[in-house]
């Protein structure tokens, strides 16, 4: 794969950086944007998340996979401030983010999307986009009453929003209510809106869930283009084709813990991963990678 002459610069950069990283849970990365330590979240007697150490490489696309109930979304919620951990700390771009409120996390440059898409139904598509811009003067009540104070900034924001809408092919829907969009279009809108925040890192929670095949390719393309723009992407996904297609690195969770890390091909051949997906009854003997991949994909169908 790496020998391909047509590899885009972002992919080449990310894969070269991760080339010498050992394939083991908690592996050190050459340039980590996010470093988390001993993150624990319990719900009553159940430990949903128990991550010892994890690092996310800057400028790469990292997939977070694992069977249902592995704690992926809970871990996502913790990192983005939507849930509070019982223990643990993490730093983002060098500054501590453990237990920080979600809106402050977003302002630091880490923006998330949701598994169940949150389009703001009774706002127009363009207003959804404008909302994403940070540091708006008119968002303070008193300044908002005087249009002269925010009109220029609003035009600048609108221009940026229109550019993104065109890129995501939503420009024809500009004035429509977001609630009138299809499921896939809402996913696109949510991703475009997240980019209005101008984040360093984008967290996508199941970006492909409920998207029809016609839109899947365009959505994949958009995720890849984030990497080319220098952004870091961490995403939760069940679709193994997508994981293999776009991710530079894969982190596997099982029962709240990180059980494996590595490039997509090695991870999908890892017996611990197959165990996690198919259950402990699996014998775990050596496999042909394609056969394993087929089984792992089979594993998702029962979810």
């Amino acid at each position, binding site marked *: 794969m790496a020998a391909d002459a047509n590899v885009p610069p972002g992919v080449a950069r990310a894969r070269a950086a991760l080339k010498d990283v050992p394939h083991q849970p908690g592996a050190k990365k050459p340039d980590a944007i996010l470093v988390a330590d001993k993150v624990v979240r319990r719900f009553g007697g159940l430990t949903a998340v128990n991550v010892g150490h994890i690092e996310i490489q800057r400028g790469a696309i990292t997939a977070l996979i694992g069977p249902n109930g592995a704690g992926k979304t809970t871990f996502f919620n913790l990192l983005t401030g*939507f849930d509070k951990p019982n223990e643990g700390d993490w730093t983002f771009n060098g500054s501590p983010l453990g237990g920080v409120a979600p*809106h402050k996390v977003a302002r630091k440059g880490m*923006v998330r999307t949701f598994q*169940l898409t949150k389009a703001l*139904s009774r706002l127009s598509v363009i207003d959804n986009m404008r909302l994403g811009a940070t540091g708006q003067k008119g968002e303070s*009540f008193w300044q908002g*009453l005087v249009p002269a104070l925010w009109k220029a900034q*609003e035009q600048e924001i609108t221009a940026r929003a229109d550019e993104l809408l065109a890129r995501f092919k939503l420009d024809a829907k500009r004035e429509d209510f977001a609630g009138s969009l299809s499921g896939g279009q809402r996913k696109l809108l949510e991703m475009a809106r997240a980019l*209005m925040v101008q984040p360093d890192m984008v967290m996508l929670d199941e970006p492909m869930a409920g998207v029809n095949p016609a839109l899947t390719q365009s959505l994949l393309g958009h995720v890849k283009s984030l990497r080319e723009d220098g952004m870091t992407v961490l995403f939760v996904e069940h679709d193994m084709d997508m994981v293999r297609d776009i991710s530079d690195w894969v982190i596997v969770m099982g029962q709240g813990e990180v059980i494996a890390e590595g490039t997509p091909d090695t991870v999908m051949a890892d017996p611990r991963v197959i165990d996690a997906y198919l259950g402990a009854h699996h014998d775990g003997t050596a496999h042909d990678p394609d056969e394993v991949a087929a089984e792992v994909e089979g594993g998702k169908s029962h979810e």
Partner: protein
Amino acid sequence: MGWDIIIGVSLESLINATMIAYALAAIGLNVHFGYTGLLNFGQSAFLGVAAYGLAMTVATFGLPFWVGIGVGLLGAVILALLLGIPTLRLRADYLAIVTIAAAEIVRLFFRSVSLSEWTGGSDGLQAFSDDFYAMNPYGSALEIGTVISFDARELWVMTVGWVLVAISVLIVFLAMRSPWGRVIKAIREDEDAVRSLGKNVVSYKMQSLILGGVLGSLGGYIIALSKAAVQPDTFGTEFTFYMYTIVILGGAARVFGPVVGSMIFWFLLAFINAVLPAAITAGYIPTWLMTTTQAGAVGYIFVGLGLVLLLIFRPQGIFGDKKEVMLDGR
């Protein structure tokens, strides 16, 4: 039947002080419910706090009128903070529960026997509006034809009231078309999405609660001044439900919705309350069916029926957008 009186009373209720007070209260509630999605079931408490803030300052403590206005506004802000700080971090339904209870606490506080030395108990307070009427520029009553008449005092309250309505509508209009209003409306749609975009949702909800509470409290002044008296039971729970009716009737999240909603509500109520007794007296409605003393209650039944029909055939209200109502919530 005296049609000229019936029509006169109905037309007066389109612009009189009661209608203005309800319009102001509903403008505030529209900021909470229509724009922000806050389920405030205690809007009457904001009016009560403002009305009593004015009345007690002047009648009980003998301070000037304008100090009373300031105390009332401050009271509304403090009430919003008291309601908001414990509840706005929680799910929306908690605000509903707390506000409905808080409104009853405020009413029972004002009518409690042990505080009657200051609040007047269930009789309320009078003699606080002299300074207000001393400013009255009108010397004589206004007569339009033979059917409509407002005396000089009414005219003065109405003038001040309509100025307040105009200012309130302007503030809501400017605020809601600004980026601030965009955040507010987005919070109504989905708080977590707004959080994920870096906005401090709790702070915005608190600002909305204060803004709507202060606008609503202006209605409390109009009620107090037009009657030259305050009574605790004016500010009961049913007051808040009339406000909700008005907001939905006019069209939630529409700038002029509460004003027109209040006009229609009071026009219908005044018309039916005038027609029914007249029809009974004239013998058009037999007394075995309804007596004049029952007509008042029947009036509310008819208003309720009219509103049910309106919501079936025009759920978006007068100014609403049908497309918007038909969208799924999320």
